[in-house]
C-alpha cells in the first residue's frame, strides 16, 4: 500500500471504531469497546512511528481528491504528510493510546464505558484529520468534529447540571473562535480561490495575496486558534471543562485539542510571517494569557483547576513563541507539554480515583500510599517547572530564548516571572497533595495505589517527560528543528537558562518552606485583597461575560419567549378557540337549521298527513260528497 493511501486511512481507523461502537451500543461487552479503541489506536501509532523514517528520508506522501466545483473553480480535499504532520501523528496517537489504556481502570465501573471509548475514538479521528489535512477547508471540518467530541466528553456525565453547562459553555466559546476560522475561509476563498496550503503559501510568497485581506485572514485564523487553545479572553471554558472524566481531559484539554490552535498557527505560519504585526498580536495575547493563568493557578485549591490554568498558561507560552517568530519552539513545547501535562492529569486522576476528592487541602501524605503515582507526578511537575534535564526545561528554554531574541524585555521579564510562578504553583500542589502532613479534613486515609493498567501509562509518559526534550537540545544538535525543516532555530543560551532554573528552584524551595516545613505561613498571600478578590475569583472574567453578554442575551431570548407565548401562542389558541366556536355555531346551525329543516319537513309531512287523514272518516257518504265536488269542479273548470 502506498504511503499516501496509508496516510489517508489513518484517521479512518478510529472513525471506524467509533462507528462500530456507536452501532453496537450495549450489546458488546465492555472489554470489546476498550479493546477496539486500543487496537485502533495501536494501529495508528504503529503506522505513525513506522512512517517516520520515510518522512525523515524526505518522503512527502499526499493524496487529493476532487470534491466539488464552484463555478469554474474546483475544490479538492486531501491529506498530506510532512514532518510537522508526522510528528503530530505520533504525539496524538501515543497520548490517545495511553489514555485509553489508563481508562480501562479509571472508567471501568462507569455504565457508559462503551460510549466513552466511542467518543475518544471519534475525537482522535478528528484530531488526526486536522493534522493530516492538506488545506484549511478539510482542517476546518475536522476542527468542528473535534469540537463535537469535546462537547460529548465534557458533558459525559450529563446528568450533572454542572457538566452539561460546562459542555455548552465550551462549545459556545470555541464557537466564537470557529466563526473567526470560518470568516478566514471566506476571505481565503474570495481572495485566493483555493484552500490548499501549498497554493496559498505560494500566493503569499509571491505577493499575489497581500494587504489588509491577508492580515484579516491571518488574524481570523488566530481567533480560531484562540478559541480552541483557550487564550485570553476565550479561555473561560477550559477550567469548567474539568467537569468531564479526567482521562478525557488529559487527552483533549491538556495534550491534543488545545494544542490544535497552536498547530493551526504553526501550519499557517507563512501567512503570519508576511505581516509581522499579526505576530505581535499573537505574542501579546499569549503573554497576557500565560501570566494571568499562572497567577490564578496560585490561588486554586482544586487539583484539576490548577492543572487547567497551568495548561492555559503553557498554551500562552506556545503563543508567545509563535509571536516571536519561532514556530519550531512552539511545536517543541507543544510536544513536551503534551507528554507531561497528560501525565499530570492522569496522575491527578489516579489520586482522585483513590481519595475521591479533588481538593488539595483534603489530601496529604499520599506518597506513602501511592508511590508510583507520586513518582510520576513529581517527574511531570518538575518537567513542567522547567528543571533540567527534563523535557520541559529544553522546550521552555527555547521559548524564553526566542523572546529574548525578539528584543522585548518586558515580555522576557514577564515570561521569566511566569515560569517562576509555574514552578511555585506546581510545587504547592505537589506538596499539598503528596508530601504534606494530612490535615484535619483529609480523605487520604484509605487511599491506595491504582492498578497497573493506570500506573503503566503514567510510567510511559514519565519516561517521555524525561527524554522527549533531548531531541530539541544541543545534545542531539537540535534534531527536532532539523526534522521540522528549520535549521536555524537551534540555540542554547546558558545565562538565560541559569536564571530561569535558579528562579524555578527558588520557587520550589519557597513552596517547600511553606508547605512542608511550615516556616512560612502557608497561603499567606491569600490574605491580601488581590489574592482573594482577583485571583481566587479568576479575575472575574466569567462574571464580566455573564454581565455583558449572557444577561442581555438571556433577557432578549426571555422576552422573545414571552412574546412567543403571549402573541404567537395566543394567536394559535385564539385560532383554535375560533375554530371551536365556528364549529359549535355550525353544529348548532346544523342541528337547528338543517336538522330542523329535515325534521320539520318530516313533521310537516306527517302533520299534513294527519290533517289529510281526518278526511278519511270512514263515512262513505262523505267520500261520495268529495267525489261529486271533485266532478263539479273539474267539469266546471275544464269543460269549456
Amino acid at each position, binding site marked *: 500500500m502506498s504511503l499516501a493511501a496509508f496516510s489517508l486511512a489513518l484517521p479512518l481507523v478510529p472513525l471506524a471504531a467509533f462507528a462500530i461502537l456507536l452501532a453496537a451500543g450495549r450489546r458488546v461487552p465492555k472489554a470489546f469497546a476498550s479493546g477496539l479503541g486500543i487496537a485502533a489506536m495501536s494501529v495508528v501509532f504503529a503506522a505513525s512511528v513506522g512512517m517516520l523514517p520515510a518522512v525523515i528520508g524526505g518522503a512527502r506522501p499526499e493524496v487529493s481528491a476532487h470534491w466539488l466545483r464552484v463555478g469554474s473553480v474546483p475544490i479538492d480535499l486531501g491529506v498530506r504528510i510532512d514532518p510537522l504532520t508526522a510528528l503530530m501523528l505520533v504525539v496524538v496517537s501515543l497520548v490517545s493510546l495511553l489514555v485509553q489504556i489508563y481508562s480501562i481502570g479509571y472508567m471501568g465501573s462507569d455504565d457508559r464505558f462503551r460510549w466513552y471509548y466511542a467518543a475518544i475514538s471519534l475525537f482522535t479521528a478528528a484530531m488526526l484529520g486536522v493534522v493530516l489535512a492538506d488545506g484549511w477547508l478539510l482542517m476546518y471540518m475536522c476542527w468542528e468534529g473535534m469540537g463535537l467530541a469535546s462537547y460529548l466528553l465534557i458533558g459525559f456525565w450529563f446528568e450533572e447540571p454542572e457538566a452539561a453547562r460546562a459542555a455548552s459553555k465550551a462549545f459556545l466559546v470555541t464557537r466564537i473562535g470557529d466563526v473567526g476560522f470560518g470568516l478566514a475561509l471566506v476571505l481565503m476563498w474570495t481572495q485566493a480561490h483555493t484552500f490548499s496550503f501549498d497554493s496559498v503559501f505560494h500566493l503569499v510568497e509571491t505577493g499575489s495575496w497581500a494587504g489588509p485581506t491577508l492580515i484579516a485572514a491571518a488574524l481570523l485564523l488566530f481567533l480560531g486558534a484562540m478559541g480552541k487553545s483557550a487564550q485570553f479572553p476565550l479561555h473561560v471554558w477550559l477550567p469548567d471543562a474539568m467537569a468531564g472524566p479526567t482521562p478525557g481531559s488529559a487527552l483533549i484539554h491538556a495534550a491534543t485539542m488545545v494544542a490544535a490552535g497552536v498547530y493551526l498557527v504553526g501550519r499557517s505560519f507563512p501567512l503570519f510571517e508576511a505581516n509581522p504585526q499579526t505576530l505581535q498580536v499573537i505574542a501579546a495575547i499569549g503573554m497576557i494569557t500565560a501570566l494571568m493563568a499562572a497567577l490564578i493557578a496560585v490561588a486554586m485549591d482544586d487539583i484539576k483547576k490548577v492543572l487547567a490554568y497551568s495548561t492555559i498558561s503553557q498554551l500562552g507560552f506556545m503563543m508567545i513563541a509563535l509571536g516571536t517568530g519561532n514556530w519550531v519552539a512552539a511545536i517543541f513545547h507543544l510536544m513536551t507539554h503534551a507528554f507531561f501535562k497528560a501525565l499530570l492529569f492522569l496522575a491527578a486522576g489516579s489520586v482522585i480515583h483513590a481519595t475521591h476528592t479533588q481538593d488539595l487541602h483534603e489530601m496529604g501524605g499520599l506518597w506513602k500510599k501511592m508511590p508510583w503515582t507520586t513518582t510520576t507526578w513529581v517527574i511531570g511537575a518538575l518537567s513542567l517547572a522547567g528543571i533540567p534535564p527534563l523535557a520541559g526545561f529544553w522546550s521552555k528554554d527555547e521559548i524564553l530564548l526566542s523572546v529574548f531574541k525578539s528584543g522585548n524585555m518586558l515580555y522576557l521579564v514577564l515570561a521569566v516571572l511566569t515560569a517562576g510562578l509555574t514552578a511555585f504553583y506546581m510545587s504547592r500542589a505537589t506538596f499539598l497533595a503528596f508530601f504534606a502532613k494530612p490535615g484535619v479534613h483529609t480523605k487520604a486515609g484509605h487511599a491506595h495505589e491504582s492498578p497497573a493498567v493506570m500506573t503503566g501509562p503514567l510510567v510511559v509518559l514519565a519516561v517521555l517527560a524525561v527524554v522527549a526534550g533531548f531531541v530539541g537540545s544541543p545534545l542531539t544538535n537540535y534534531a527536532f528543528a532539523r526534522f521540522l525543516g528549520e535549521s536555524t532555530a537551534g540555540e542554547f543560551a546558558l545565562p538565560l537558562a541559569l536564571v530561569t532554573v535558579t528562579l524555578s528552584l527558588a520557587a520550589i524551595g519557597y513552596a517547600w518552606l511553606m508547605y512542608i516545613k511550615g516556616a512560612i505561613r502557608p497561603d499567606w498571600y491569600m490574605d491580601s485583597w488581590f489574592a482573594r478578590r482577583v485571583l481566587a475569583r479568576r479575575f472575574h472574567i466569567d462574571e464580566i461575560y455573564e454581565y455583558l453578554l449572557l444577561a442581555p442575551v438571556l433577557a432578549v431570548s426571555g422576552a422573545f419567549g414571552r412574546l412567543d407565548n403571549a402573541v404567537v401562542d395566543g394567536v394559535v389558541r385564539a385560532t383554535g378557540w375560533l375554530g371551536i366556536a365556528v364549529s359549535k355555531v355550525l353544529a348548532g346551525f346544523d342541528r337547528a337549521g338543517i336538522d330542523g329543516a329535515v325534521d320539520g319537513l318530516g313533521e310537516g309531512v306527517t302533520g299534513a298527513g294527519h290533517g289529510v*287523514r281526518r278526511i*278519511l*272518516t*270512514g*263515512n*262513505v*257518504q262523505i267520500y261520495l*260528497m268529495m267525489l*261529486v265536488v271533485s266532478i263539479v269542479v273539474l267539469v266546471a273548470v275544464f269543460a269549456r
Partner: protein
Amino acid sequence: MITLNHYLVLAAALFCIGLFGVLTSKNALRVVISVELILNAVNINLAAFSVFVAPRQAIGLNFVVFFMVVAAAEFGLALAIIIALHRTEDIGAIDAIRKLKG
C-alpha cells in the same frame, strides 16, 4: 211541444235530488232508495234520448230494459245486505259503520 230538454232537465233534477239523498241520508235504507231514484232518472234520460235522437234503432229502449233488470237485481242484493248487516249492527246509524276509516 215537449222538447228533449224538458226530459233532460227533469232527469237531471231527479238525479240531483237522489244524489242529495245518497249524500245526506243517515238511514241505509233511504240511501238505497235514493240510489234507485238516481237509476230512475237515468232511465228517463236514456228513454228520452232514444226517442228523440235515434228512434228508428230503438236501442235505447232496450237499454232501458236491461237497466231496469240490473237495477232490480242490485236492489234486491242491497236489501239482502242491509238485512244481513242489521243482524250484527244497528243499521239505523249508517255513519257508525266506519270500516273504511283511514
